[in-house]
Structures are given as structure tokens and as C-alpha cells.
């Protein structure tokens, strides 16, 4: 194996079901239901998925949901804003822990 991530592996995702078909089928059914048009549109859900893909830094998901966003009618400007939302939340999540740092420092300091 020359790299941990290979684009062709995305097509093998369903092979996960070989070792436990029942759980795979349940996951698939749930996954499909989540992304179906509901209170949110399919396009909005794809943009959320793209942002989450960047937050969890999954190259398979970034590949799949970039294509999905385009196929739902989104444009690169909208997709970039979604990535910035992920970035802001990730950055903010780090920064807000500064409060914890300050609490500890305050306790330890004179």
C-alpha cells in the first residue's frame, strides 16, 4: 500500500457489508433517509455534508460531496462558504477552550 487513501477505494465502500450485511443494510437505509428531501432540501443537505466532510477531514466524503453539491445545483462560491463554516466552527472550538486554559491558569496563578 503506497498511500492510506486511494480514490478507487470509495467504490469499495459497500464491501463493508460483506462481514455484516444486516448492519450495512440498516446503515444504508438510514443514510438514504437522512439525505432524502425533507424539511431541508437535498441541495442544503449536500452542502451540510460537504462542510462536515471538511470538519472530519474525510477525503472520500470531500470527493463524493463536492460532486453531489454540483449535481444538486450548488456553485463553488456556495461550497466555499460551506467549507468556511466548517473552518469557523473548528477554529472556534479550539479558541473557546482558551476559557478553560484561562480558568486553570487563574487557579494556579497568584
Amino acid at each position, binding site marked *: 500500500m503506497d498511500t492510506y487513501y486511494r480514490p478507487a477505494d470509495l467504490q469499495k465502500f459497500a464491501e463493508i457489508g460483506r462481514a455484516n450485511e444486516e448492519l450495512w443494510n440498516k446503515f444504508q437505509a438510514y443514510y438514504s433517509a437522512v439525505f432524502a428531501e425533507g424539511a431541508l432540501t437535498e441541495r442544503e443537505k449536500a452542502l451540510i455534508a460537504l462542510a462536515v466532510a471538511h470538519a472530519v477531514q474525510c477525503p472520500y466524503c470531500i470527493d463524493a460531496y463536492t460532486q453531489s453539491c*454540483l449535481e444538486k*445545483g450548488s456553485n463553488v462560491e456556495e461550497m466555499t462558504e460551506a467549507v468556511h463554516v466548517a473552518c469557523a466552527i473548528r477554529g472556534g472550538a479550539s479558541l473557546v477552550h482558551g476559557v478553560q486554559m484561562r480558568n486553570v491558569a487563574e487557579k494556579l496563578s497568584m
Partner: protein
Amino acid sequence: MGLTLIARASPLAAPSEQLRILGQGNTVPPFEEKIAEAGLAPLCATGISVLQVNVGKLCNQTCAHCHVDAGPDRREQMSRETAELCLRALEKGGIPTLDITGGAPELNPQFRWLVERARALGHHVIDRCNLTVLLVTPQADLPEFLARHEVEIVASLPYYRAAQTDAQRGAGVFERSLAALRKLNALGYGHPDSGLTLNLVYNPVGAFLAPRQEAIEAQFRRELDRRWGIVFNRLYTITNMPISRFLDYLLASGNYQGYMERLASAFNPAAAAGVMCRYTLSVGWDGTLYDCDFNQMLDLPTGLGAPHHIRDFDPARLAERRIVTRNHCYGCTAGGGSSCAGSIS
């Protein structure tokens, strides 16, 4: 503006080279196999309700995805004699709709004559319009002409923003398209009760499939109205066919294999059952008959005993003809399907 494949002396200008690439066995399963699996073999026409006439390859644009390889340097044009034969076929076959395409069909000197005659005979007439041609000086009165004859306009607009539209259709095309749409709206086109129908066509700007038609139509309606106050009737989604200049783009960008796999994996039997070749007959600028405009560009005329030329038009033999298919046909059967009237299923 880009150049046509012919002007670039590209090997892909030859339909035989396109068919060679599409026929390479290691890309996707043969389309015929999928049709058989869907229980649709042999794929046959079920009638002729649309005569789609391609009056020539001359165009004022050179769009990156054009399946015709149309452009300003193309000179193929339908003659008055062949146009007359098309009118006779409409009558003889009792075909309700004449669908005129190109190139930019309005640039053919026979265009207005063909429209006037077909309308006088009571046929519904569709003009597949690139919008910017309506601003070309000799055509300045075209919108009024089309409105006067109540011609349905099917106009290309791949996106509601300039960057995407211009990337596919050329620099400045979006702004000129808006100007043409404003003219059409001012005449009543696109307004619900005017009787003047303006339908838009969405093509993906790249190597991906179109959105669900109803969803992108709602998005276009909202954005075109909000940004520019433009209205339209329906929006049709049409998949880019892996032929001609779009095939050239796919190969040059390294997307060919992935795109073909995407089309084949999204094969939809319901869409396959409703493909437009089953109810459309396509006529080339020289009168040759085809199952669709894509087969026309691949030099694949009607096959297996059906007449090959409009002068030999025989509705009984053509209405149930066997359709000629190759792997580009995956473009019409992927996802919701694709036709000149938008998605299928």
C-alpha cells in the same frame, strides 16, 4: 471564443474517431446489454410526435460542450428544397410538433420561411435558441417574429450566474443572454398566461450530472427573479453527451473514464423506456434521417430497413423503427434521464 474541432484539425472532428473511443470495451458495459437487462431490447420507436430538424451547423457561439461542433466557421445549411420535404413529412405523418435546432437555427436563410409555413399548417413550432443570436444585428426583429407566430422558445442558460455560463458558452454570453431574456419577457414570453412559452435549458457546466429538474427549476426561478426580474415557464435539465466537443473536454481534463462510469452506474430503466428517440425523428441539414440529434452528429443514420432520407419519408416504417444505439446513449438514461424536453422520469 473557442474554436470548433474542425478548425482545430482535431481527430475528434471525425465521428468515426468518437465512436472508436466510445466503443472501447474496458470503459463501461455495452449500452445494448443494459437495454437487454431492462427488458427493452430491441429498443424501438413507438411513433413520431416530434420532427426535430437540424437546419445547419452555423452558430454565432462556440460553446465548450457543443455536441454539434457548431460555430461561425461551419457552413452546412439546409436548403429550401429539403425544408419543403420536412413540411411535407409533417403533413404526411400527422406529426404535431416541428422542433428546429442547429447551430443557431435562426441564422439559416430558410428559418423564417419554415416557421411561417409550419405555423400556417397548424403545427406547434419550437425554436432551440442560444439567446445571443437574438441580439445579432440582422436578427434584431426576431423576438417579435417569434412572438407573432407563437413559437415556443427553448433557450440555453446553463446557470443563473455569469462565471458558470461564460465558462461553458464564452466570455460575455451571460450578460447578452440576460439582455435577450429581458426582450423576450417584455414581449410576454415566459409570463404564465401570455400564450408565449419560454423554456430554459440547464446543462451541467462540467463532468457531472444535472440536478433533479424540479429542484433546479425552483432555484432558477427564485434566483433569476430575485437578481434580474426575469421569468420563464419551465426549466429542462439536459445531460451533456460524451460526444464531439464535450468528449474533447472530458478527454483533455482526464474526466472521460469517470464520467462514463457515472453515466453507466446511474442507468435508469424507467428513463430508458421513455427516451426521446422513441417518439422523435431527427432530420439533418442534408435531409438524412436519424433517431436523434446525437446520432446525427455521430453519422449514425436510421438503421435496419428504415428510410434514410426525408425524401423517402414513410411514417409507417419509421414509426416503429429499431433505434440505433451506442455507448453515448447512457447520457439519456442516467439518473432522471435526459431528453430535449428535459428529464424523463
